[in-house]
């Protein structure tokens, strides 16, 4: 078994597609109409055949309160790996991305948390937990 897909619940698929491609820099992989929504997945340009991120509508009534509670406490929904967190932080801030946590050096890993404008916080991290 392997992990090929991970989903993130977004409040607006079109807005999410713009944020995740134009700001974060991911590439669209699939964009298939599915009734009133779309099946949208993205990949990293550093790993175009790697795991896909699915931008999933957050329509279920339980999802929004869950997302708000996470955001209130600053808890990221998921985490992405970056090579140079200081440079990424600077680049994204210059694009107007809001960070709830600037890069913090925890020792083995340095991590920051940003707002994806679609109701989630996202962690970006340099280094790995050993």
């Amino acid at each position: 078994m392997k992990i090929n897909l991970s989903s993130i619940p977004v409040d607006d698929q079109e807005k999410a597609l713009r944020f995740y491609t134009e700001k974060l820099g991911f590439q669209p992989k699939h964009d298939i109409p599915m009734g009133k929504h779309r099946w949208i997945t993205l990949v990293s340009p550093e790993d175009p055949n790697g795991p896909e991120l699915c931008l999933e509508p957050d329509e279920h009534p339980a999802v929004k309160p869950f997302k708000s509670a996470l955001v209130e406490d600053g808890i990221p929904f998921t985490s992405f790996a970056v090579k140079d967190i200081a440079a990424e932080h600077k680049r994204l801030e210059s694009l107007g991305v809001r960070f709830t946590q600037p890069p913090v050096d925890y020792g083995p890993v340095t991590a920051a948390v940003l707002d994806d404008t679609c109701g989630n916080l996202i962690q970006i991290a340099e280094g790995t937990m050993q």
Partner: protein
Amino acid sequence: MDEVCRAIADPTRRAILDELVDRDGQSLFELCARLTLKHGIGSSRQAISQHLEVLQSAGLVRVEREGRYKFHWFHGEPLEEITRRWPTRTQGESDA
């Protein structure tokens, strides 16, 4: 005074204050991550929340909402009461 002394009598609560002095205005997530990874404090998020409530009632931490986020800020004023009550004497002052 009792509340302030009780609040700073606990090492986890002192570590929380240390981390807020390092960077003020943190989310609960950031504080918990710092406590776990920098201090080896493996307490649950709920336990840290309770510590923060003790610090809040002692007036040492304030929680401010900023839109959808909630941040914690350090307030050192209650500690000044301690140094006012037991001031450090400069040399020779005690003989006066």
